[in-house]
């Protein structure tokens, strides 16, 4: 990082809330707190807004991933864990930085071109990610006024893919079902009937006067996948509904590997979100929209909103330690990297910030209790998300720039346990130069190898890897049609859950879902509590 002149000391040094990290949840919390009149200090160790939700240029993204990945070297020996604070009533507990990323592998296949356009990329760290028109995050933006700072564009189409490489349109609306060439007539009939059933179910929940319940209580509690089978929907339609409309991850037909079996009620809710999204904004073609200049715009918009309401922003400012009351063990403040101590009643932290285990041993029980949320948990059955970013020349589907592609479980290879989602974005949303597209891939996985393998499989399904000139004779026509890969990043991100601990809260990392539903929900929960 470039050396910048040190900051002058912050003034005032006492706040109601300090927020560290400018990810979506942190920014929403900061905006919520400052709009309710509280004094808020919002810090970020990075020189940009967004933390793990940022949109960066290719070099910045590369360096961010590398610096936040599990390094092969042991961390440098830290100074004694507990330092006396400047004030005698306080003790200071050092914080450690947790690396969220692993197996980072970045390769460039055409450095020259990329070099030339390097600043014209806005690549998301948390991709693939889109926003449903009827999302809670949109409501929140409209409510807070953050919508003034972001513009969205519609995702033109969504597809379901399989190992054959064929992309079939997701029949998500009446017109789409009508036009669909991949569904048989009977499938069209069944699918439309199902949509109508869902719609009437939704209409009923709004209108309590009608007594007829279309879907029985018993069905509502049964697994969604069973309900779909009961509706006589054939497997291919079931998979479209489950993975490309309800956006599920786990194979709902495989009880052993499915970590989250969706109930009909939840399934209907997810469909409701999709259906409501379809007609919400007249200028959006479908259910999904994407912010121009990348997802990084969203946290930034909330930050701006917060700043308008009086929140103070300091970037490039890590915190190094927490200050606790020696007697009671209560949280008092933080020590900045500049050495300055800042005090607040509440603290919200980025998911990367932890307390070192060795520091805890010397603390009292009360102090430990205060720091509870910052202690890294030993997680059993750890879930991770493998993400991939590709910059390509051309498009995976001609005539379509912004598109979502879903590979349902087992569609690419038999061992594929979860759905792979791919999002292609073009210059229309200002994330890359004109003739290129950025592709985001993600899949939930149990370990890095499994995830990376699945990503590579999906990539080879859509993209042509550059081959040395001599091999060009091997290429056949189908290869020729695929777009050419220029740049690729693969990384596996840990999924850290947020925790609310009274005074100190830790926010969740970017989750595995396609939208911000859970992220925003947790932020709203925390904000309410504060």
């Amino acid at each position, binding site marked *: 990082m470039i050396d910048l002149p040190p900051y002058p000391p912050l003034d005032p040094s006492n706040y109601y809330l300090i927020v560290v990290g400018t990810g979506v949840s942190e920014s929403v919390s900061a905006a919520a707190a400052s709009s309710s009149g509280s004094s808020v200090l919002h810090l970020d160790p990075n020189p940009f807004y967004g933390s793990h939700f940022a949109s960066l240029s290719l070099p910045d993204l590369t360096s961010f991933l590398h610096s936040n990945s599990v390094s092969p070297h042991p961390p440098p020996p830290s100074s004694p864990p507990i330092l006396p604070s400047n004030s005698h009533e306080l003790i200071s507990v050092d914080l450690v930085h947790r690396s969220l990323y692993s197996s980072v592998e970045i390769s460039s296949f055409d450095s020259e071109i990329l070099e030339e356009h390097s600043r014209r990329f806005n690549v998301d760290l948390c991709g693939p990610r889109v926003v449903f028109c009827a999302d809670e995050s949109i409501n929140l933006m409209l409510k807070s006024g953050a919508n003034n700072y972001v513009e969205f564009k519609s995702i033109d189409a969504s597809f379901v893919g399989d190992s054959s490489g064929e992309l079939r349109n997701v029949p998500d609306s*009446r017109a789409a*079902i009508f036009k669909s060439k991949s569904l048989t007539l009977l499938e069209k009939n069944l699918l*439309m009937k199902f949509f109508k059933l869902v719609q009437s179910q939704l209409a009923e929940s709004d209108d309590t006067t009608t007594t007829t319940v279309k879907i029985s209580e018993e069905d509502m509690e049964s697994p969604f996948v069973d309900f779909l089978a009961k509706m006589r929907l054939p497997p291919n339609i079931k998979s479209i509904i489950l993975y490309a409309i309800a956006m599920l991850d786990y194979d709902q037909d495989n009880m052993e590997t499915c970590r989250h079996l969706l109930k009909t009620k939840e399934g209907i809710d997810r469909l409701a979100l999709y259906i409501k999204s379809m007609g919400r904004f007249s200028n959006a073609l479908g259910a999904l929209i994407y912010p121009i200049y990348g997802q990084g715009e969203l946290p930034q918009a909330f930050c701006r909103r917060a700043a308008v309401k009086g929140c103070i922003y300091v970037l490039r400012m890590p915190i190094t330690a927490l200050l606790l009351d020696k007697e009671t063990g209560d949280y008092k403040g933080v020590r900045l990297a500049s050495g300055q101590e800042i005090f607040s009643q509440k603290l919200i932290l980025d998911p990367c910030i932890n307390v070192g285990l060795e520091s805890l041993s010397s603390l009292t029980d009360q102090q430990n209790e205060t720091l509870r949320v910052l202690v890294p948990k030993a997680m059993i059955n750890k879930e991770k998300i493998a993400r991939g970013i590709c910059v390509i020349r051309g498009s995976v589907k001609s005539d379509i720039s912004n598109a979502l592609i879903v590979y349902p479980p087992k569609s690419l290879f038999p061992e594929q346990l979860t759905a792979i989602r791919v999002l292609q974005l073009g210059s229309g949303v200002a994330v890359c130069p004109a003739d290129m597209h950025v592709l985001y891939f993600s899949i939930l996985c149990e370990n890095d190898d499994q995830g990376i393998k699945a990503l590579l499989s999906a990539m080879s399904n859509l993209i042509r890897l550059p081959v040395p000139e001599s091999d060009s004779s091997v290429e056949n026509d189908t290869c020729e049609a695929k777009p050419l890969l220029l740049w690729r990043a693969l990384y596996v991100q840990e999924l850290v859950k947020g925790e609310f601990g009274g005074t100190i809260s830790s926010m969740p990392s970017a989750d595995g879902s396609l939208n911000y539903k859970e992220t925003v929900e947790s932020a709203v929960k925390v904000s309410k509590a504060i």
Partner: protein
Amino acid sequence: MHGRKRNAASKPEEDAASAAEALELRLLQSQFMSNHHQKIYTKEAIQLSAKLQEINPEAYTAWNYRKLAVEYNLDSADPSLVNSILDKELEVVENALKRNLKSYGAWYHRKWVLSKGQCSSLDKELQLLNKYQKLDDEIKKNLVLRNFHLWNYRRFVVELTKTSEQDELQHTTDMINDNFSNYSAWHNRSVLLSSLVAKKADGFMPKETIRREFDYVHNAIFTEEDDQSGWFYYLWLLDQTVKMETPLRASPWPSDGSNIILSGPGCFNGSSSKFTTYCSESGSFPLILYFDQAVSGVSSSTVTIDSELKSNEDLVWEPVPEKNSQVSCVWVARLKFDRTEPVKVKVSLGKSRGIVSSTGCNLITPYEFVFTVHIDDTVGESQEGIISWTDGFDSWDAQSSKDLNSLITLDQLEVDTGFEWRKQAIKIEIEQFRKLPDSKFGKLNLAKLLMAEETMISDDDAVKGVHYKEILQLYNDLMALDSWHDQYYKDEHSVALLRKVTSSTESLTRHLFRNRNMNSIVCLRLNNLTLSRIAALEKLLFVQMLDLSHNELHSAEGLEAMQLLCCLNLSHNRIKSFSALHSLRHLKQLRVLDVSHNHIGCKHPVDTTRYLCSSSFSNSGETGRKVPSKYRDTYLVLRDLMKLKQFDIRGNDLIAGEEFSSFVRQVVPTLVWLDGNKLAS
């Protein structure tokens, strides 16, 4: 209507605002009127009218004023200004349309401006229409999709710009892909396709066009079977499939190779037992041609008679039921006969062109049939006894069935070149719709398709009649499923049932009897069949005695084709008025008519059937008889039945008192039996 919500009641401040607006409008209007009267066409005056039109696009006078102003200015303006004057008009129209997209005046004005010859901006017109038709606003969009002003104007512009029909077809495809609940688009599509097929445009041969359209409309039907716009188009397509390139079929009476026996005045008591006996009192007998499509051009020049009978060269062919109509399915001529020995008669059609079906099919292949006329001159005493509908019926003897077969088949007049593809198309459709069983539209459609196939295979003895059981069951299901439309299903059920009955000699003979009291005349008994409609008449032309009692008929419509009918029983039906019996007046041979136990005379505020029939006044003038207005309908039916001997009207709502019976006797002097009682002569 059309999903628009009614506006809430206005608030006081809104009332005040609208009052101010009204005041302004009134001021504007009076200024405008004074300009108009003084013929002031200055720039300011024209601007004033533009302002008025923006507020009130319905001001017709203002549009007319503008037309005058344009004419005036065009006369005096130099040619370079013409375009700018007309452009200004288009702009005013556009502003008015913003206010009200359904303003007739505005659209007419636009057409008028375009017809002034400003063709430079015609392409813009289509773009403007596309813009309107692709409006974002959902509610507005629904209004616009169905806005016939837009579609009409579109057709006008298309004609002016000579846009190709293929392009317009693509436009309907785009509109339908966007939202297939669009009657206007489907309709326009049908119009365009008809024209393209008729022109034999490249890629629009009937066979492939029909198949392509079927495949396309399936998407709409299967996606949302409850949406009627797709069905609407589908039924049109099905109709095209059955009719397109279909040759005419016809059935004559007397049929080819038949022997008919003409007997004298006392025919009912004669000894002949052939069912081709025909009682002729006036020295002539009818020659009937029934076509399966309405045709025009049947005349002595297109139908030639070759026989020894004299004075039959200039036969007068009359369409039934309407004398004055140009097209009809049934044509009748009266052949005079003056011989006592058997005479062969040869009738030829199509030797010279002129017989054209309403679908444009021109009969060009000659078709002829020959029959022999015998005379039975046994003079019996004329029939005086009352005809009973309950006894005197003998069952049918099988030996006559041979003759019957020729009576109930329709002759195809020309080679059917498209038969195979049409049959194939229907077959594919049937397979498709068997997959959609639990919907009422699906069932109805399947029944229609099966019926269409049945019509096509009616010449093939091996398979004909296979579908009737299923069709009848489908309509029964539909009546239970959708009671709202059960009258329609009942009618269709009746049609199917009658087609089933007439589909083979076997099934028909089950309903055929001979009446002992009537010289063993052939009687067709279709009683107790819950019929609500009459059909399949082309196969029943030979019937002289018909029993339709104990059915659910509402009208005698269709029976006029049975020109030989002399005894008819319509008792125990649901006929509500004499005007529902109107068609009977064409049955000149009718001797016995039983309409007892119906609902004739019910005091209905509006007799709907009357308006479907031809005007009663136009035909009633000639007699000068004073007819009480309450009996006028009765009079119109009975006065033409010159041979009626027996009439039964008991058990109706009409009070058949002395007054009525004397009226009937007056109208029908030949009457012997009324309501079962012999009349004193």
